[in-house]
């Protein structure tokens, strides 16, 4: 093994390999529920796994650079007694071989650290191995090792570990904190998405979430690996220049540093200019739609988005339970489209669906609202919380035109005077209470406080009612509320006697 790793030291290679592997492995185990008896709520989707694979290498990058500096400063520097540069043999081989070996070690360590996450996701979702995303992640530790190696050879002192820690940390920090994600304006979301810098910088939040059907662009992977090859070559060249030009004083340092820093930057700039987009969204698909009995309410999702579909079906069943049977049949209905996968890619399309999917959606009828479950966009931002969805449900299914003026004054009135103000007061609280009851259906939520400014015996009874009492009350009196036929004394009679 020692001969395989030559000239890298086997002990330090082992120590650094384990530390490069540690952070991604710990993240994989913690975030993916490895080792839990019931891991299903923890297992993330294929898209989330791909996003994680392009992010988890941050610590590994820094450690790989430190490994490079540590391996190089003693053995490869001109000041070294161990392998002084006048030893015969090809300079390319003397410096290129350790750089390649260390780069391979860094990539392997990252892949090994991500293995628990990949295995766990494949077990539970049955997708394919995310080779592209893994290659994107593996590229950066390789480049960082080479950078560190050249820094160690140039500085020739163990203090090269300091810039070898600070430089990748600054790069990663800059790409995380300085480069902000964008969202496209308007109603379309392009098929290929990602800032042109994403292939050049170690990590970048390009603004896309874990959409079903997300895949990484092979051109971006290729571009990044081309950049890695350039960095490896530049580092080897910087080491060779150091060996040949070293002399007392500091004048020799300009050429190697220039090669080490400027060549990769120029190559990175070229990659950024050619701008391959990092991510590819889902191709047009046929959605899976499920309808709720009793109310014209349906939920549609991408075939790979089963978990979100199940969850929203539970929410919608809870919301539908507020309407007594056959009370909302005359409404055209509401269809929830889950997630950004539905967003069209061109202005001509209605949705990002196949023809079969579009006809299915048309058959469902009703008003379509797109709910945000993954990527944040202008379009889905309107329906990012369950309360927004329940508000749309209330607006669509409950027609209380007589309470329209009262609804405008619901935060101005002091007491509840007549049926219209009671209806407005109830309708103002209704979306919030519906969403809380829906969360409770999933085991969450706590009590709520009322909304609307009115106070008084009727208003207080409504505000203090628990979600179950309010639910039962609305179910009993929905048609009267719609006709503004509930007076405050009706409220006191109805709710008061149940206390």
């Amino acid at each position, binding site marked *: 093994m020692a001969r395989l790793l030559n000239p890298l030291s086997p002990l330090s290679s082992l120590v650094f390999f384990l530390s490069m592997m540690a952070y991604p492995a710990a993240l994989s185990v913690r975030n993916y529920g490895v080792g839990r008896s019931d891991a299903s709520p923890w297992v993330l989707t294929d898209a989330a796994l791909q996003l994680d694979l392009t992010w988890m290498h941050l610590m590994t990058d820094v450690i790989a650079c430190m490994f490079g500096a540590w391996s190089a400063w003693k053995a490869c520097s001109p000041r070294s007694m161990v392998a002084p540069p006048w030893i015969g043999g090809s300079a390319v081989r003397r410096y290129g071989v350790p750089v390649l070996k260390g780069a391979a070690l860094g990539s392997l360590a990252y892949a090994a650290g991500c293995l628990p996450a990949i295995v766990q996701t494949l077990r539970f979702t049955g997708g394919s191995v995310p080779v592209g995303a893994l290659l994107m992640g593996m590229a950066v530790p390789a480049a960082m090792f080479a950078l560190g190696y050249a820094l160690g050879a140039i500085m020739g002192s163990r203090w090269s570990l300091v810039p070898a820690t600070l430089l990748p940390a600054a790069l990663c920090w800059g790409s995380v904190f300085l480069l902000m994600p964008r969202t496209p304006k308007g109603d379309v979301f392009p098929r290929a998405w990602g800032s042109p810098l994403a292939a050049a910088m170690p990590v970048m939040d390009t603004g896309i979430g874990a959409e079903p059907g997300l895949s990484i662009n092979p051109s971006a992977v290729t571009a990044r690996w081309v950049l890695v090859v350039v960095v490896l070559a530049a580092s080897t060249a910087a080491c060779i220049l150091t060996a040949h030009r070293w002399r007392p004083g500091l004048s020799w340092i300009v050429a190697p540093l220039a090669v080490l820093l400027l060549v990769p930057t120029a190559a990175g700039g070229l990659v950024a200019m050619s701008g391959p987009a990092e991510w590819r969204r889902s191709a047009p698909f046929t959605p899976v739609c499920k309808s709720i009995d009793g109310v014209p309410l349906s939920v549609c999702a991408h075939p790979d988005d089963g978990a979100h579909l199940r969850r929203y079906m539970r929410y919608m069943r809870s919301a539908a339970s507020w309407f007594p049977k056959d009370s909302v049949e005359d409404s055209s209905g509401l269809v929830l489209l889950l997630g950004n996968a539905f967003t069209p890619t061109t202005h001509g399309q209605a949705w990002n669906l196949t023809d079969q999917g579009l006809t299915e959606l048309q058959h469902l009828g009703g008003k379509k609202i797109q709910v945000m479950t993954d990527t944040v966009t202008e379009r889905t931002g309107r329906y990012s919380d369950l309360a927004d969805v329940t508000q749309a449900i209330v607006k669509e299914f409950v027609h209380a035109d007589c309470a329209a003026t009262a609804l405008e004054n619901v935060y101005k009135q002091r007491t509840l005077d007549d049926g219209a103000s009671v209806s407005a007061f109830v309708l103002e609280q209704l979306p919030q209470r519906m969403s809380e009851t829906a969360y409770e259906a999933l085991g*969450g*939520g706590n009590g709520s406080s009322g909304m609307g400014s009115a106070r008084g015996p009727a208003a207080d009874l409504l505000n203090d009612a628990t979600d179950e009492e309010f639910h039962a009350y609305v179910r009993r009196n929905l048609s009267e509320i719609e006709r503004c036929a509930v007076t405050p004394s009706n409220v006191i009679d109805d709710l008061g006697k149940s206390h």
Partner: protein
Amino acid sequence: MGGRHRRGSKRGGISVGWLAGRNPWAALAFIALAAAVPFLLASVSASATGGEIYARPAYYGYVCLPDPHAVVFNDAVHTQCPQGKSAVPSVVPMAELAYAAFSACALVMLAPLMPTWERLNLARVRWRALAAGTGVLMLPFLFSLLLTIPSSHGDPTTAQSLLRLAACNGLVDASLVMLGIALLGRFYGLGLGVGLAVINIASQGMQVGMGLTLRLYPEDIKPPVPGQGIWPAIAAVLTVFAVLLWTVTGGRGMIMDKK
């Protein structure tokens, strides 16, 4: 004879005294930077209105705190924090990073280049080391605290509360670096000290669970962070211990004594 008692005096062409073989002017420069730069950074980030580049933090994480008002979900939902806890941001501002980094540089500048030579004069070296170590830790801290005293009318400004937090947390980080350098010497000690500071930030969740935290959080955080009341005591103990260790080893690192 008299020259031995004067700092930096020459005897037969060889510098004597505690500062011989160290970089006192570089250390002073770093102390001045540690006093001035955090203030500038704090003012600049406090005046940022929204997400400007120079207001970005050095590190942004979160800590899970017990919260009686936390929303409860069953296992079907994957939450950021376990049941009964909610997430609170744990930020390392650039001001704190600058403070700790410049203090660390000052400490490294004060590490000797002739440690075996100093072994001959260790008692006197220790007094000077005590003075220098206290100066490196306390001068920037007291200067920053002075700047955070609110003016006669009104509450402290945002910049002042930012600076106070950065200086207090930076002091803890600098003490940890001083501890590391006192133990392991200039190079490995810097690594140990920085590692200890990083471990401190990373283990905040565990520390909160134990009820005492070695970091200060903003006062208006909800839910309140447990253990903030004892922070001054813990920080004082840590600082005193670090200065003590630095004095005892004369800023030379314990491993050097073994040779």
